[in-house]
């Protein structure tokens, strides 16, 4: 059993997923698991064709639930390290070895890929930039940690971390900056590494339109508030059967 795995949650990504999987396979021969979150197109077939192991949700439950299914699978299968990345081609797979090197050398429990830790001239929309600045400030205020890219989904986790995330306390709605605060409360060490990210090839985004962005900000602030008022003992490490 390989002790490392890569999970990719996807929803209707038939256009990009084949090249994403091929890209990942160029840089590693690590077990690759795609969680198809109830896609209604040919996503699952494309994943199998590209050689990935596919877990299919019976219906669409959202990005966070798909991630958690991946954590549960990794837990059952006994993986020690897990890397998660997006299925739309935004995350450059050339950093995969560096992510695992960082985790395996015990420098941190969670490695976060950051677009902003080095000036790589990555452009984000004004609303997203405001959100990123807001969450940087909130994370700094409540944890004292300087996180430059709090909304990054390119992450590598140690087993203890993804075990904790299989619990119902994991914020499945929008796992984002709130998860970083949760990790801090759980006592895990987070470290950022510089990565390149690219705009979605099909121009789609999870957060389209002003009302979606406002709702996202509201839900995230609410989630952070709930994490802060919860007793630390709520976040226990428990095995999922």
């Amino acid at each position, binding site marked *: 059993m390989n002790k490392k795995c890569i999970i990719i949650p996807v929803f209707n990504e038939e256009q990009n997923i084949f090249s994403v999987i091929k890209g990942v396979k160029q840089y590693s021969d690590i077990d690759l698991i795609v969680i198809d979150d109830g896609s209604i197109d040919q996503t699952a077939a494309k994943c199998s064709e590209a050689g990935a192991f596919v877990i299919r949700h019976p219906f669409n439950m959202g990005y966070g*639930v798909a991630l958690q299914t991946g954590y549960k699978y990794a837990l059952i299968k006994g993986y020690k390290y897990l890397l998660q990345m997006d299925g739309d081609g935004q995350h450059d797979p050339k950093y995969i070895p560096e992510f695992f090197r960082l985790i395996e050398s015990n420098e941190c429990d969670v490695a976060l890929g950051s677009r902003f830790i080095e000036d790589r001239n990555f452009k984000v929309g004004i609303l997203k930039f405001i959100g990123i600045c807001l969450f940087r400030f909130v994370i700094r205020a409540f944890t004292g940690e300087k996180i430059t890219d709090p909304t990054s989904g390119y992450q590598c986790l140690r087993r203890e971390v993804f075990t904790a995330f299989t619990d*119902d306390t994991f914020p499945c709605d929008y796992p984002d900056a709130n998860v970083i605060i949760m990790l801090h409360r759980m006592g895990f060490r987070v470290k950022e590494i510089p990565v390149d990210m690219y705009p979605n090839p099909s121009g789609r985004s999870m957060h389209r339109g002003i009302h979606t962005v406002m709702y996202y900000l509201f839900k995230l602030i609410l989630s952070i508030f709930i994490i802060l008022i919860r007793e630390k003992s709520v976040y226990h490490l428990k095995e999922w059967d």
Partner: protein
Amino acid sequence: MTLPQKIFAVITCLLLFAIILYLVKKGKLREEYSWLWLLTGLVLLVLVLWYDILLFFTKLIGAVLPTTTLFLFGIVFLILLSLHFAIKISILTDQVKNLAQKLSLLEAQKDSTARKS
């Protein structure tokens, strides 16, 4: 409280009782959800029939008319019921999510085993 108001309130409470008992008997309403409705119907019936208690509560909450107290109790009940359902929905959402995830994992493992053999 005027006599027509009293008659209307009693009929409403009795109708509520009858509908709830009918739904429980037919198996369309689970017992665990019926008790809150029955309790409310009972409280409202007691308040309507025992006028002194209604007056006591009216004075206690600082209302002018006894009917206000009845409406207030009704609204408080509806808020409690909404909260009760919100709690139930939260639990059910987690359960559905966990079940769907477990199903996905089992199916994936089954497919993987079938492919190997």
